[in-house]
């Protein structure tokens, strides 16, 4: 007696996460997998951005920071000149 199994569907569940080394954003101290204080929805609506120094922040957070600097902005974590990682 043998059984053959036919799968009709397999509905799986997954969680997404940002592929970053750190857990929380260095600026707003919120989780990367959450969102910045100004946003309501995580994920595509509140993306992460990496600097040339490999530090990641919420896009909205770092933009606010960069725009608030009068001269050249620096990475809030390592004080290197801030460059978006291309």
């Amino acid at each position, binding site marked *: *007696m*043998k*059984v*053959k*199994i*036919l*799968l*009709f*569907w*397999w*509905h*799986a*569940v*997954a*969680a*997404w*996460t*940002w*592929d*970053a080394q750190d857990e929380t954003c260095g600026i707003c101290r919120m*989780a990367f*997998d*959450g969102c910045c204080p100004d946003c*309501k*929805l*995580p*994920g*595509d609506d509140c993306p*992460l951005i*990496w600097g040339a120094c490999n530090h990641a922040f919420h896009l909205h957070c770092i933009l606010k920071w960069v725009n608030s600097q009068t001269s050249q902005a620096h990475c809030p974590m390592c004080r290197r000149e801030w460059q978006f990682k291309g």
Partner: protein
Amino acid sequence: MADSISSTCNLGFLDTLSETSIHEIVESYSAFCAATETLLNGAGDLSVGPQLVSHVHRLCSHGLESLVRDHFLGALERTFEKDGASKFWRHFEAHDDVSIGEQVFYNALEEISLEKQYQEKCLLMLVHALQTYGGRRSRDSDDVSPELFAKYQLSVSSILMATLPRKFPDILNWYFKGRLEELSTIMAGDEPRGDEDEDDRDDMELDEKCRVSYRSGQMEIDECNPQGRFFDNNKLVNNIGRVVHDLRSLGFTSMTEDAYASAIFLFLKDKVHDLAGDDYRISVLESIKRWIQAVPLQFLHALLAYLGDSVSYESASSGLKSPLAKCPASFYPGIDTPSEGLVRWQLRLEYFAYETLQDLRIAKLFEIIVDYPDSSPAIEDLKQCLEYTGQHSKLVESFISALQYRLLTAGASTNDILHQYVSTIKALRTIDPAGVFLEAVGEPIRDYLRGRKDTIKCIVTMLTDGTGANSNVSGNTGDSLLEELNRDEESQENIAPEDDFHTDDKQAWINASRWEPDPVEADPLKGSRNRRKVDILGMIVGIIGSQDQLVNEYRVMLAEKLLNKSDYDIDSEIRTLELLKIHFGENSMQKCEIMLNDLIGSKRTNTNIKATIAQPSHTDAGGELGDNRVSMDILDATIISSNFWPPIQEESLNVPGPVDQLLSDYAKRFNEIKTPRKLLWKKNLGTVKLELQFEDREMQFMVAPLHAAIVMQFQDQKSWTSKDLAAAVGVPIDILNRRINFWISKGILAESLGEDTDDHVFTLMEGMIDTGKNTANDGNCEDLIVGDEEGESSVASVEDQLRKEMTVYEKFILGMLTNFGSMALDRIHNTLKMFCIADPTYDKTLQQLQSFLSGLVSEEKLELRDGMYFLKK
């Protein structure tokens, strides 16, 4: 004797009396006595009349008027006592029972009335004699007759009262009851005809009928009744009227009134009980009122009319004109307004009816509320009754005790209690929009529910239930709170524009003039009615205490529901959430919204990934697992933002190789599309639909991934030991043993003991053996058997979450107890509150702390003695 009487008046007068006049006096006095005797015992023979008159005149001429009167009255009294009263009572003595024949009653009354009439005639003769004498002497003696008659009346009634048998009031009662019943039967017989008439009558006809009916036929019920019945009634009522009249003339006025009043009230009470019964789906108040109009009031009306109406009610002050006084007289005002007495009777009767019905309904309020939406007519009735009688506190008391006795017991399920609570709120909202009594009634229920563990769960279920059920089951959504949510939304929309007008002076004036004081029973501590709003959701949330707990429980339930969905259809959940957002505020529902958003996003991403993924195995169609390939078509994924979901139960699981391959392909594609995001599979979650194909039959199942993984292992190997199977599937043995029961219960696998006692052996069943068990499935491969979850939930329950959160404080608590030795519960609570202000802030309730501590006690970390916690040595 004459001398002695005269001497008391005027002794000097005696001296003036001559021998002859004394002789004359004595002579005429004895003649007068004899004449009186003959007259009274003469049985209708009035021939001695003229003789009497002359004697009286003679005696009067000697100034002996008072002697004449006293003697005559005394003789009347003696005769009445001897002949009238004792004969009268003898009629009733023959019967031990109160129910003597109607005829006997009539005869007795008639006889004694005749006797009395005759005596009155005699008295009249005396009065006449006195008057003629007085007239001759031109002295004003008009006042003699009323005085004499009053004296006579008094002596008659005092004789009757003095000899009254004890059962006489009962006899009267019985008599009136019988007549009322008769009248009621006559009325009931004609009821339908009356209604028909009502439809096609016009004002002219009405006028006419009114005129020919009673001389004061103001009752509406009369107006539309056929004449035939009216005469029937008339005869009956005339009989009764005569009886009452006779009884009154015998001095039984108040006793008679008592008797027919109590008969009417008893009859009314029976009628109310009869009409109201146990059926709460119809309103009975109107028919009771109609009946009052038709039977007792008509009876009274006729009676009062017969007796001339003014006898006992002359003194009724017009200040008592009631709102209930009917004004049918608008056709011809001034002529036919109901008499004061009748209006008072109507008020009394209606109040009594209201009170009776109210008592009846209050006693059954619990049952009425149980079938609330159907029983709303009964509630309406009760409302009207209470408005009239104002005995709300009676309702509160009796209902609370019914609740304590019948609902708030260990035997009642939380769901039932909640449903009853909601029905109570709805029903009492009708009766008392201010919510004062609701407050009192709801309190015990709320207190009780707070003590139940599954209250929150039940409430959340009630909130979300009916979301899946659409119009087809709308019939039983009567107690679903979702409907309340909907209503709330509407009312909020309605209120919004109104708020702007509140500043308007005019509106303020309208509001002010609409103000009504709180009922007396209102608890002044609870604030005025303006702040009190009967809001079902608010009251339900009030049970729990805080809305956060409710929202949290909802989130867990929602997660559970979403994770077990096999499609992305969440319309009903979105609707519920929108409604909840209106009520609880957007912020508190934020996480739930993200959860729903994840589902929407997943659907999009899923389509996107499946459309763009490179499919090397496209050539081989279907999900044949024989080849190590499965089509990507069968895989769907729900991708969640785990930060916003309740903590999820993680279990390791080795999914079958081909599926695992699919999963990693899928994740890779996701990573390509959504860089730099990646997927972490929760392999134990989700649903799988599969078909087992045996040689002789096919069976379909919808199961959890773990079940699928287990059964798929049996494709290549028919028999597994539990140890090996656990290793292959990648779960601990105890979990495997528990979950594999699903397949055993379905008759797919069989369990047997292996060589090792700990090790069980699972074997694939041969097809024929279990046919008995699954006959229904044979040849019906479309049967879809949904794998039961056996209480396994994919989301950590609220209690689990709490335990997790509390572990942070375990160190604090242990440290505290090391320092202080022993501490009471609230001291620990207060200390934690004081010192744990920084991240994470201690925000737990005393109950939560207690349950956590008892967990520690059972883990033998702590000890609890006399309410103090110690470190376990």
